[in-house]
């Protein structure tokens, strides 16, 4: 029942905060977000799942399965549970929500109760995606995430917010439809052998080779087509080049807390789904397409980094860097080795924290200076030493400095993908590794011009230290990044327990 409790806390919190008067909304939202946060930590400490929830023999933690809807040949169950892949992401989502709510205190000054209500609704959707094991419930949560994010961008965003919000909604909703058709092809192809939309059951049936032909199309073709449709759908969410164009728009226009959630947690839905659907259900097709996917991953890494290098807007730099970092995750997934899969999952976590940290930093800088243009400012370190420190820490994490989370994630991924089976894996890995150099390049370049050197600011605002409540989320994130970097095992063990079975054995 603890998972239901977790979701209920978010939903009830969302409703309560929505109807609170504006002046109590921030405190109310922070309080409301502590309930799911504490619940997720309770879940984490009591976690004793092992194996992969989708594969036979996987032991789930906190599993619930009750009949929900059963109509004719269709049965839908309320099936939730967590394994070593979803548990870290659940913790990530609750931690980021609480911190994002803190970062909202300064920039959000109108219609506060609505803003915070939507943040909590967003949290409910995210958590639901990570815990649902029935496709239908999963899809409901997947779509529910879109609505609050659409509103957060469209109402509280920057000058081009309406354009960005609509673009976000249309892109991701269309992607869902494509993915949905792909998955449904698999379900119909399975015919009578699976009578529910239970994702583990479907996965096991597909892997056991029970997929039949559909309307005269051979099972192999169905698999390939379904794989491509699902991959295309999830690729938009990740996002992978060339379907990434909604991301910079959405990020630049979104208010800081929404950016934190978008980069920190929402993008993980895409890679999580890729891992659960494409790579767990159809590993053989994934292996066939591996060089092509690896190419897309490497292009995302390099192209994303190059785009970041060319930006003048601090927020855009961070936004494009996400494309790069998520490219590493895809590379880890496609490697399909212990370290690759585990590293990819770990990188989701680490990128969630790091991108959240950097977006929050940019938000603090923007609140103080009212500009994000690299050319408009320099030498901020003199006036905002703490924020500068955090920004530097976050950038170093991104560059893969040892003892920070980013290093561990990337190290695992490279370790895994270098040893991968598919043709040219070494070349792909080598090229992707070069991406880190570009990442280091644009972060150092951006820091050099904005933070260091002589103080100069081309706006009329006086720049001083940020408020304590602005700094707290940054500090917490930096601490978490370092903790994960020095002791990756607090999550890496449970992750490898869960990804190991995908390869037919443990680590």
């Amino acid at each position, binding site marked *: 029942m603890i998972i239901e409790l977790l979701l209920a806390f978010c939903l009830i919190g969302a409703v309560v905060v*929505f*109807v609170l008067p504006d002046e109590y909304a921030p405190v109310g939202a922070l309080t409301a977000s502590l309930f799911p946060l504490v619940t997720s930590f309770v879940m984490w400490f009591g976690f004793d799942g092992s194996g992969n929830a989708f594969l036979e023999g996987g032991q789930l933690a906190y599993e619930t399965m009750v*009949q*929900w*809807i*059963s*109509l*004719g*040949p*269709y049965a839908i169950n309320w099936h939730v549970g967590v394994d070593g892949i979803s548990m870290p992401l659940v913790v990530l989502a609750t931690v980021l929500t609480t911190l994002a709510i803190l970062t909202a205190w300064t920039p959000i000054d*109108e*219609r506060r*109760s*609505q803003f915070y209500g939507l943040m909590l609704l967003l949290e409910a959707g995210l958590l639901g995606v990570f815990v649902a094991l029935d496709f*239908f419930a999963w*899809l*409901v949560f997947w*779509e*529910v995430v*879109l*609505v609050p994010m659409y*509103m957060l961008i*469209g*109402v509280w965003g920057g000058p081009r*917010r*309406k354009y960005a*919000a*609509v673009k976000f*909604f249309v892109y991701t*909703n*269309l992607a869902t*439809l494509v993915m949905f058709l792909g998955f449904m092809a698999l379900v*119909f192809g399975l015919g009578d052998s699976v009578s529910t939309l239970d994702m583990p059951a479907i996965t096991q049936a597909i892997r056991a080779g029970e997929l039949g032909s559909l309307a005269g199309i051979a099972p192999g073709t169905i698999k390939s087509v379904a794989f491509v449709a699902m991959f295309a759908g999830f690729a938009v969410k990740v996002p992978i080049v060339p379907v990434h164009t909604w991301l910079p728009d959405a990020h630049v226009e979104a208010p800081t807390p929404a950016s934190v959630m978008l980069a920190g947690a929402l993008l993980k839905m895409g890679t999580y789904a890729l891992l659960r659907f494409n790579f767990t259900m159809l590993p053989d097709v994934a292996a066939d397409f591996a060089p092509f996917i690896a190419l897309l991953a490497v292009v995302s890494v390099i192209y994303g980094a190059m785009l970041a290098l060319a930006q003048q807007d601090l927020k855009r730099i961070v936004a494009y860097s996400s494309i790069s970092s998520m490219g590493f995750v895809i590379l880890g997934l496609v490697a399909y080795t212990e370290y690759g899969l585990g590293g990819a999952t770990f990188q989701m976590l680490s990128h969630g924290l790091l991108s959240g940290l950097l977006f929050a930093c940019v938000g603090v800088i923007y609140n103080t200076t009212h500009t994000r243009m690299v050319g408009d400012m320099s030498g901020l370190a003199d006036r905002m030493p703490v924020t500068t420190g955090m920004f530097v820490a976050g950038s170093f994490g991104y560059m893969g400095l040892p003892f920070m989370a980013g290093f561990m994630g990337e190290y695992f991924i490279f370790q895994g993908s270098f040893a991968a089976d598919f043709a040219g894996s070494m070349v792909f890995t080598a090229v992707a590794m070069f991406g880190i150099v570009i990442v280091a390049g644009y972060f150092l370049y951006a820091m050099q011009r904005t933070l260091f050197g002589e103080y100069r600011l081309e706006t009329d605002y006086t720049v001083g230290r940020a408020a304590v409540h602005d700094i707290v989320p940054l500090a917490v994130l930096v601490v978490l990044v370092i903790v994960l970097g020095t002791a990756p095992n607090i999550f890496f063990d449970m992750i490898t327990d869960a990804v190991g079975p995908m390869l037919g054995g443990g680590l």
Partner: protein
Amino acid sequence: MAPLPDWTAAAPAILLGLTAIALLIIDSISPRSKNRNLLAGTTLVGTLAALAAAVGLLVTGTGTNGGVAIYGGQIVVDGMSLFFTIIFTSVAALVTLASYDYLAGETEQAEYYALVMLATTGMAMMASAGSLALVFVSFELLSLPSYALVAFLKDNRGSVEASLKYLLVGALSSAILLYGISLIYGVTGGLSFETIAANIQNSGLTGMLGIGVLMVLGGFAFKTASVPFHFWAPEAYEGAPGPISAFLSSASKAAGFVVAFRVFTVAFGLDIVSSVDWVLAFQVLAIVTMTLGNFAAATQDNVKRMLAYSSVGQAGYVLIGLAALGGGQDALVLGMSMTHLLVYGFMNTGAFLFIALAEHWDIGRTFADYNGLGSQAPIACAAMSVFMLSLAGIPLGGGFLSKYFLFGAAVGAGFWWLAAIAIVNSVLSLYYYLRVVRAMWFEESNGDRTIEGYPLGLYTAVIAAAVVTVLLIPAFNFVADPAVDAAAALF
């Protein structure tokens, strides 16, 4: 306890009729009363009693085993009729609640409520009709009060004009329906569905039967606002008082569907009538209706007209229930159409009532007039957003589930192309539903609009509809199961 006499199965319709009579008695004791509490209260109590009776009958199993046939088979109370009576009475309760504020200061309140109750009685009778004669009588019992209700704002030209248009189209389609009924009587020599079904095979008059069936279909197309008898709908919905638009577009439409479901499955069942391919007719009707409704809705600037056209589009989805018969999943497809009508009853009524609320606040009717409303009336706008997204098929309300299962059942029955067209339409509809959401939340308010207080009844009705729409997600099985059972009983 001794079993209740059979006639008690008609309790919901009887209660509704008695409420109408009670209202007329109140009016004759104290004419032109403005005592809103008494009039609305009586109506609400009567409606809720009928709702409770229908739920009670359904839960206690009156509808099972082919139902209860009373008055010589003229009235058949089964699962389907009770299910639809629940839809009608729920919508009527919401509309009554909303009318409480809408009618403040009007002098003909008793007449208004009595007409609503009479129309609801007509709907309940339509749902239970066992013969074409009763179908026609209850059809008129629903239609005549509706014409008067649309014209209720008699100082408003739009309202009167809309009513006239509605009346003319209605009279024409009544005539067509009646002519169709007479042709069928001529072919089969009976009016009750049983007799028709029994005699239809022996008759050699296929051509006449075909014309009769198509004419009956035309009569239902009018009531359900399906193409080609849809063009009264936007005018009537726009001109009518807000709560009445909600009433017509949700309950009255469902009433048209229930008769269509029953007539075409019981009297002209697929296994009985092989000579007339009415399934094909419904396929054409479904596709044209949903496509035309959605495209017309997308080009509107007036929110109420947009909703009117979108409800034409929604009728197209429901028609899938008849268009996808014969694919081996008849009960499921039809049951899902019924479920979609129930969900639609709440989300669409809520949306129209929100517009009534906006009218109450003297906000205009175009999208631009809704700009920035979200910051002034956040809770009502949140409810409206739920309605819009649910209608579009985003899982914030039960509309997602009912559409998903409706389309899924069509695919399962082998009509994947029908489902594909419906999905494309559904995606298109997102465009104009989101326009409302965008206007309310994203745009800046343009000017000096003030929200003076929240009218209690109207506000409660909107919120209640939104809560039910959301709760229909977890509780979907509770409504979908009886619907499928009821549909299965017809085959």
